[in-house]
Structures are given as structure tokens and as C-alpha cells.
């Protein structure tokens, strides 16, 4: 059985990283999907264009929350330009314009969700919100 509920994903769902209070963030954006009730906020704090902190809070399905947690881990320490590039890679990967996962083993855990078109938006919700925080000048 090709379950999407792989160990890495479940670990991030049960033990979410960088989840909770967003008070100390410079920029916060909300991502919501009223169709399934997923509703999260993503915040960033940057110093010299480098992401010192990426956090999120909110409610959603396991895939949405695990994706947000994985995202936070994968983007802290990146420059904002690198983070935007990674978001674009994720969008391309889930939009099927590229078939290879971005070169990051943790992100690869989300790959199984690509088989389930209805859940792709759950994965991308946090990433699109992050993209918006990165775009604010």
C-alpha cells in the first residue's frame, strides 16, 4: 500500500517544529482553504536577508500541518532569495512541471502526496503563505 502517512510526515505531524506563537515575527501571512477548513498563518523573521526564524500556527489536516513544519525546518537559515527559489521548486514539483523532488531528503517525504491531487493544496498552503511573506517589501 502506497500510504502517504510515512514516518517523516507522521513525525512532523505529531511533533511539529516551529509551531505556535508568531508575536516576534516581522511578517505574517495567512493561508486558508475554506473548502477543507485548513487555516494557518506563517511568519518570518529575517536579518540581513537571511531567515532567522520561520514559524506557523493554525489548524489543518495532518498533511497541511506536517508540510508547514517541514517547510519551517527547510527554510530557516536560507536567504530570502533561496527560500523563494525553494517555494518555486515546490510549486513546480506539485504542479508536475518537474518530476524530481527538490534536493532535500525531508521534503521528499511529501512526495507520496503528489499521487493524490485533492491533497496537493494541503501541502502547498504553508508554502504559498511563506511566499507571500517573502514578497512583502
Amino acid at each position, binding site marked *: *500500500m502506497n*500510504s*502517504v*502517512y510515512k514516518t517523516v510526515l*507522521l513525525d512532523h*505531524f*505529531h511533533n511539529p517544529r516551529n509551531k505556535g506563537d508568531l508575536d516576534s515575527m516581522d511578517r505574517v501571512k495567512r493561508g486558508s482553504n*475554506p*473548502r*477543507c*477548513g*485548513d*487555516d494557518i498563518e506563517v511568519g518570518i523573521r529575517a536579518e540581513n536577508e537571511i531567515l532567522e526564524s520561520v514559524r506557523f500556527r493554525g*489548524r*489543518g*489536516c*495532518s*498533511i*497541511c500541518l506536517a508540510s508547514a513544519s517541514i517547510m519551517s525546518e527547510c527554510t530557516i537559515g536560507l536567504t530570502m532569495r533561496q527560500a523563494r527559489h525553494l517555494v518555486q521548486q515546490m510549486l513546480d514539483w506539485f504542479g508536475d512541471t518537474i518530476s524530481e523532488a527538490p534536493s532535500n531528503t525531508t521534503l521528499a517525504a511529501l512526495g507520496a502526496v503528489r499521487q*493524490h491531487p485533492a*491533497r496537493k493544496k*494541503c501541502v502547498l498552503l504553508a508554502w504559498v503563505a511563506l511566499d507571500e511573506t517573502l514578497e512583502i517589501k
Partner: protein
Amino acid sequence: MLTASDSVDFDALRKDFPIFDSGPQTLHYLDSAATSQKPRCVIDAIDLCYRNQYGPVHRGLYPLAESATEAYEKARQTIENFINAPSPDEIIFTRSATEAINLVASGWARQALEAGDEIWVSQMEHHSNYLPWQRVCRDRGASLKVIPLDSSGQLDLDKADGLFGNRTRLIAITHVSNVLGIVNPVEKITRLASVNSIPVLVDAAQSVGHMPVDVQSLSCDFLVASAHKMCGPGGIGFLYGKKERLTQTEPLLLGGGMVDQVLADTSIWAEIPARFEAGSPNLAGALGFAVAAAYIEEIGRQPIAKREQELAATAFEALSEIDGVTIYGPENSPYRSGILSFNIDGIHPHDIAQIAGEHGVAIRAGHHCCQPLMRHLNTPSTARASFSFYNNKDDIAALVMAVHETKKILGS
């Protein structure tokens, strides 16, 4: 003593549905409220139509066209009898129940409404019985009013001030909730509405294939349903309208077949029901629909209702024994059909449905096109198991197992 449900061999009927023999994994299909599976007789009727009977309806003078027209009109009579309508002319074939409601909203209500008037719906309506009224009220300066629900999810008619008052132009109400499975007291509503001659539209999408539905005893002005939720093909449904109401209704679609005379700047519509069926009719859909209605009628909707209530009651009991499971709607009561919505604490229903799916259990998760109801239930979404007579105890056991499995994987 044998009861109605006991006298029908439902396990044998399951064999009428080829899909249950089509895959390596047993399919536990608990999503019949979304769309039902199709028995062989319906599939065969559609196949036969395209092989031997297919021709233009109402548009030809050669034998094949004539027999196609005859078969189509016979299908209309089957639906007439299925809901005990007084005349086949009161049955309009549409693409869906949704289209039928839109026809009444755009064709009837738009003209009947004046500023300050009210249309009443309930908080449990499917978006298809909500949005058309919301728009027509907005466009005509009328108000859309909502019958509230009590804590168990049933209509709270006492709190619907003015429901049967003289501003009300229409009450549009679902017969059976597609989320809670509640059977609404339509006869009581039409009786109270009749005092002020208020027309009532009944959304019978979740009832017509699952329990006896008689438009004369319901005493409604309009009733809508679709074929695909009652073992029939997709792409066809119907509107029942009392003749006097249909004569007040403008057609939604204009085009071929619905007009008698087209003059330079005006036209004269064809008779009812042709007036409301512009474009080439869906012959195979109508024939498949009629066979589905006959199939259900042969089993009997009384035994079907009993069977589905029993299955839902068994599932209700089994699920309510599991820690952390919340079931929505009233506890077992005669006002429930075979639909059951639930949640597991701390777990998103999409995860329940996906893990269930991996175990061969097909359930729905989401807001079920009922966002106003979700607000009442104070949850963005639910998981829903909906039973049809072709389901059995194994399906319930598989559902219960899937819930345990979901808790094991995602529970804290």
C-alpha cells in the same frame, strides 16, 4: 414475524452491482449520498439504448425517431408514477437536481418576488438549495431567511419567526439532510404553509431513492431530485412542479424544441413540459433513470428505508463506542435516514477519509456543500458514511476498523 426489510434478500441484491466484483480489494462503498453505484439493469439499459434504440427525441418522423420519442416519454411516465405526480406533464427532465432548483429560482421566483418579500430555507441546506435563492433575493430586493436548527440538528420551526407569514413567497427545504441524515417534517411544513398559500419546494435528492416519496401526500409545489443518487445514470434529474406553478414559470434555457413559433421579435413557447427542455434531450439518461426507478420500486422503498436505517443505526452504535468519536445529529430516531456524519478528536476528516480509502472504505470528508450547517455544528468539516441497501455488516466492520486505524496512525 417477517418485517418489510427481512422479506428482501439484500445480500443477493448486492450481486446486481458489478462494481463490487470489479477489483481485487473488497470495496466498502459508504458514499452513496454523494453518488450511488449502478445495478446491471441500468448499465444494460444505457448500453441497449445506444446499440439499438438511439435516435432524436421529438425531432424525426422515421420509425427510429418515433420509437426514441416514445421511449423518452415513457420514461417520463415512470418518474411520474415513481413520485405519484398527477400528470407526466408535471415532470421536467433536467441535468440535475441543482439545475431543477435553478430553474425554479430563475424562472419562477425571479418573477414572483417583490422587494420586501421573503424566501425561507433552512440552516441544513445543501449549497444547491441555498445559493440560487440567495442570488434571486439579492437581485429582487427580497430577504433570504433561514430556519434555525436546535442542538440536535433538527429544524427549530418555533424559532423561525414569520416562516408562515404573509411576506413569505416560498419555502425551499430539503427532505433529508445530506450531512445529518435527518428526515424533515415536510408534510407539517406544507400544511402550515397552505394556510397562507405559500408554495413549498422540496429537495428530494437524498430521499427519493431511499424512502417512499409521494408529491400528493407531501402536498408540495415543487420537488427536485437527480438520478445518479438513486442507482441511475449521471447527468439527469427532474423537476416536479404543480401545473399552476409551471404555467407561472419562465424557461431557464431557450433554444430548440421549447418553442412553437419564432417571430421576428417575439416567440411563443411550446407546451409544458417541452417548454422547459430546450436542446436535444438526454435519451439514454432518461431510459437509465426510468430503469433505476423501476428497480428501486421493485425492491420497495419501505424495505429500503428500513434496511438503510438499520445499517446506519448499527454503525452509529459501533462508532459511538470508540473514544474520541463525535457523531452529529440526533441519536437513533425514526427521523434519521442512512447518513452518518462524525469526527475524531484532533484528527482532520480528510485524514480519516484518506486512511479509510487506503483500507478500501469509501467515505466522504469535507463540508459536504453545507457551509451554513458546518457553522451550526461549529466544525469546518466532517467525515460522512452514507449507507445504501447494497451495503452490509462487513462494510460497517471495515469502517470501524478504519476509524481505529486512523486513531492509531494519527492519534496523540
